[in-house]
């Protein structure tokens, strides 16, 4: 019990004194996961809009598959991306394995289904009269899609925040693709996993608190924007 209390005390100390390694790991985590979230959003929002407002065969099946992939295990994404970017893989020449860029790719793949799927649900939730009104006002196809996305912006923002949360909190793909290299690819989750296994409880707790704080701040920002 003492060990845990001691751990919390040291953790607070590490955070308050802005321990350089803790800060570095935190910033790297945020950068990697934010990049993945941004890239995934740029792909997912237009894709989700197109799927929602196009009619084609197998549409429902596609949506079902996307929704199934919400629960995609992170280690499977790790494995999949590993196969693609390892030396022997088709993108091996790009030397992305054990780099932050590789981790961004893995996290992007991981959260794409959630972002596409939730974009589709957000857009489906828009009142049909709003859609009619946009068409009736003389919107081109592009203007229509842009306006509908804008109309669903709060729901889509929530989806993006959820995606970010999944990206920054996953550990399987980060360790397989990043390799937890100190000063290079070590992020909050992989560091917690390592420090705990090595018995450095205090550092783990500090990193855990930071991880939660990041989630808290992001959600507060979202709430502020949504209530504005």
């Amino acid at each position: 019990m003492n060990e845990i209390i001691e751990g919390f005390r040291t953790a607070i100390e590490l955070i308050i004194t802005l321990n350089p390694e803790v800060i570095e790991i935190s910033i790297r985590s945020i950068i990697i996961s934010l990049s993945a979230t941004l890239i995934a959003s740029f792909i997912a929002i237009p894709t989700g809009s197109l799927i929602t407002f196009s009619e084609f065969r197998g549409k429902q099946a596609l949506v079902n598959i996307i929704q199934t992939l919400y629960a995609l295990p992170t280690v499977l994404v790790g494995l999949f991306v590993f196969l693609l970017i390892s030396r022997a893989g088709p993108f091996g020449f790009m030397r992305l394995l054990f780099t932050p860029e590789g981790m961004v790719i893995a996290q992007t793949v991981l959260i794409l289904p959630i972002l596409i799927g939730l974009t589709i649900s957000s857009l489906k939730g828009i009142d049909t009269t709003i859609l009619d009104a946009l068409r009736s006002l003389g919107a081109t196809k592009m203007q229509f899609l842009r306006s509908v996305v804008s109309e669903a912006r709060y729901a889509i923002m929530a989806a993006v925040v959820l995606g970010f949360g999944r990206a920054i909190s996953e550990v399987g793909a980060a360790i397989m693709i990043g390799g937890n290299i100190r000063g290079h690819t070590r992020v909050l989750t992989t560091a917690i996993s390592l420090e705990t296994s090595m018995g450095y409880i205090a550092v783990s707790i500090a990193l855990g608190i930071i991880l939660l704080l990041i989630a808290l701040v992001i959600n507060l920002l979202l709430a502020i924007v949504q209530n504005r």
Partner: protein
Amino acid sequence: MLEIRNLTKRFGENTVVKGVSLSIPKGEIFTIIGPSGAGKSTILRLINLLEIPTEGSIILDGVNIHKEKSIEVKRRMGMVFQKPAIFNVSVYENVAIGLRFRHVREETIKKKVADALDIVGLTGFDDRKGKTLSGGEMQRIALARVLVTDPDLLLLDEPTANLDPVSVRMIEELILRIHKEFNTTIIMSTHDMFQGQRLAHRIGVMIDGRFAQFGTPREIFTTPNDRFVARFVGVENVIDGRITSKDRGIAFIKADGISIKALSPLPVGTDVTVFFRPEDVAISGSSEHAGSIRNVFPGRVLSVIPMGPYSRIHLNCGVPLLAMITYMATEELGIREGSEVCASFKATAPHVVKR
């Protein structure tokens, strides 16, 4: 200006619009009235290119709009929907959106939005959030949003169906004002027959996917073509009979033991339906006011239903009759269930149609 030819729309098994043809000249206010589900909205949506016709064509100033399908054609029209569709942005942006789609310069947008807000009486609302408005205000914004695009054809799909009476009056005044100021051709649907009467130059009564009758408001409300139209426009007394004799234009129509006197050019022996409004039926305690061209039927009161300043009175005079009189008259005559009274109406009141 607008010509609809043999327009049909099916949704799956369900045929909603059944071979409708219609021509609307520039500057006309044409009102489609009819019960819910008659196909009123579908016609407006077909005109606005929101639905694709199963058969038939819609010609706007010589252009077959569903063949052309151009955004320019669409941008000549504006539509206001039954349910207020307000975007989750400021009032200013709500009104400006159609102009933004048309890449209009910001200065012009500013001016047009200000003018439109002035017309609908919402000046100063620019920065309010659309979603914070009341239903009536939303519908006025929806009108303003369409106005700024200067439509040649304005489509209004039951624009007042969900509004309180004050807002309804306001929207109606706006529609008349817009028509007066811009001479916009307006096609409007409503299930409120009196609204049709207040606003329209011409009315089409739509029943079950077809126009049962076209006419001026006066024609529709006094001379319905058939019992469906009659029932819908409030001509609730509908009696079937046969012309048994005639005297100088007055036909004597025998129906279920009573004989009705009515103006009609139809010959003796014709099977007819007689229509007249409850408002045209007077009630008195005795038959002493009976004149030669007045129909007078003694009968018994079945029920008295108060309706605002009026009473609706169901009578049995051999045939069932419905009368609408003021509550003052009801009280003065002491009319209640079971009262023995006389119902009367002029021979000019009924509209006689061949069966």
